[in-house]
């Protein structure tokens, strides 16, 4: 049987102890979470344990050592942890149950984080700055990408209807560009329409998974369908394909594009982050991670409901 780029990439993820953005860098939450999601999505569940444990170590260490100079783990990183641990739990990863306390803490960090109202800027930006979701860093404005990650995490743990998730969905709708697509989260500044980019567009579409159909989002799906072929790098291609998948629009030629991206030379080098995104997207039109998140919205899946109940009970203990 011929080995493919996908086999090579999954083997590399399975063999790693460090899950980094770039070669030579230390582990970080996002690469660890993406690596775990990819391995589980491809059925290599037991091999995801190292990435999931590394995610727990990173999350715990950051919060224990929090000072002004070394701030607590940021909420968007907690969102990644929640998403990965919830998927592992649902798919029966052996260590999932022992991470419940960490998941509870991640949920607390996520729910405690909130963007600032930017109402006074209304005269020179195109979006509604009074909508509140998640910032990159507490004390600043809400932005599209941390909001997408927050929404996804809440959906993954069965909180589809949580007020924070609803507000996040609404904010992402509001941050679409007039012609469709999204960027980091500004649409119009001083009367000038800004450009869309594929990675945040894909993240927006993924965050809307399982939502009832709304005409407001169609233009961004159209943008993704029209422009996904321009994506040549792992983060943009991985996210835009998952965004299309989330809405049943896996495009023809996607597998070839993923293989090409995996082989393209990068001056910065591929970290586990890049490999994880490409392999996670390569699950194709029935991405198991996204399917789990979608099922969480219907509240029909027993394992997701059970996971949500456990998190809620531990949350009450904290309160």
């Amino acid at each position, binding site marked *: 049987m011929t080995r493919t780029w996908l086999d090579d990439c999954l083997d590399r993820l399975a063999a790693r102890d460090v899950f980094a953005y770039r070669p030579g860098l230390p582990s970080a939450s996002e690469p660890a979470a993406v690596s775990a999601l990819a391995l589980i999505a491809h059925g290599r569940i037991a091999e995801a344990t190292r990435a999931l444990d590394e995610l727990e170590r990173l999350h715990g260490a950051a919060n224990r050592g929090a000072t002004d100079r070394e701030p607590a783990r940021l909420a968007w990183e907690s969102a990644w942890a929640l998403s990965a641990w919830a998927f592992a739990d649902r798919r029966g990863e052996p260590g999932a149950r022992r991470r419940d306390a960490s998941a509870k803490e991640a949920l607390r960090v996520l729910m405690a984080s909130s963007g600032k109202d930017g109402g006074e800027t209304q005269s020179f930006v195109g979006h509604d700055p009074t909508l509140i979701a998640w910032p990159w860093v507490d004390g600043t404005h809400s932005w599209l990408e941390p909001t997408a990650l927050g929404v996804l995490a809440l959906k993954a743990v069965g909180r589809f209807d949580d007020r924070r998730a609803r507000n996040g969905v609404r904010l992402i709708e509001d941050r679409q560009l007039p012609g469709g697509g999204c960027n*980091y989260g500004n649409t119009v500044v001083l009367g000038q329409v800004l450009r869309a*980019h594929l990675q945040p567009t894909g993240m927006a579409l993924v965050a809307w998974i399982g939502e009832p159909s709304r005409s407001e989002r169609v233009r961004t799906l159209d943008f993704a369908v029209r422009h996904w072929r321009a994506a040549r790098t792992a983060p943009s291609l991985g996210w835009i394909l998952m965004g299309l998948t989330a809405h049943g629009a896996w495009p023809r030629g996607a597998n070839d594009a993923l293989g090409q991206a995996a082989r393209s030379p990068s001056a910065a080098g591929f970290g586990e982050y890049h490999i994880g995104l490409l392999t996670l997207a390569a699950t194709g039109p029935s991405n198991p991670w996204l399917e789990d998140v979608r099922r969480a919205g219907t509240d029909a899946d027993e394992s997701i409901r059970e996971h949500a109940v456990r998190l809620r009970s531990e949350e009450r203990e904290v309160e």
Partner: protein
Amino acid sequence: MATRMSDERPSNAGGRDAPCSGIRIDRRALLVGGSLAAAGLLTGSCRKLGRRGRSPVFVAGRQTYDGPLVATLRDGLIAGGLDLAAMRGKRVLLKPNLVEPTRAAPYVTTDPRVVRAAADVFRSAGAHVVVGEGPGHVRDTDMALDASGLNAVLVEDRIPFADLNYEETGWRPNSGRTSRLDGFHFPRSVLEADLIVSMPKMKTHHWTGVTASLKNLYGTIPGIRYGWPKNVLHHAGIPQSVFDINASLPRMIAIVDGIECMEGDGPIMGTPKPMGAIVVGTNGAAVDATVCRLMGVAPERIGYLALAADRLGPIDAARIEPRGDDWRTLARPFTLLDVPHLHGLRLGEPGSGTP
């Protein structure tokens, strides 16, 4: 402090009030100009000029991206006072501006041929060259490298790239102290560099008026700590945080890509402005002041340059030693966005203090 957007209105973007008057400047910030000399990276003549309070700035006109850029940059660095012989074994970080690249508008970002030429000059001098950037608006750094054309150059020339948005970071106290920020998390490649070469594109900026070498160092701030956009800096005040970052990173020199520039709604959505210029100097404030004059803008009306004046370096024309081509023969006014906070920035306008 008011909440602000990514492209928020800076508190001192060039209005008629004295920018940041009354702000107390930490004495450490005053020492920035001497750091390169202390590190032995400046030539003797430049050190003497510095003692007289003058900083050399080299300007070359009639430049093209396919022209002899290596020779131009080498001439500029020597004329600007850098001792290339002292660069052997030194770690040099070239920092282009890739804030939000798009193939449709190459004039948004530093041209890769200028980066390649700078790498050639420093490598020829025996330095270890790394190119590094932390794009402010896009998390996909590979996309930024690809769309700007820089990835192909770096791969072909085997120049390593440091992804400043994702590297591990170290804390450095805020040596400027004009913002409320206690310090900065800087990426490892920034902290370990013996010399940072800020390589901006010459552009207008819809909040600050002009962006050049000092503002370009926003890209040394890691997204992994500050986000995309780096909103923490905006909330702390753009002029103040630009000043503070530069005061905290003293070993910086500047090579400005002023060949195909941007005017109007910069730094992203403006229109092309051909200038054919390269500007080089060992003091970022003096270089940026010269860039402003080339663009027809009064440097003292730019908030962060007003802060930088005589602290990070001279911005007064009388205290800048012109080298190379006469900037007066090359200057062409850039169109500025017609918004109230950018009124009054032009050279010769009432209140600019510059004829």
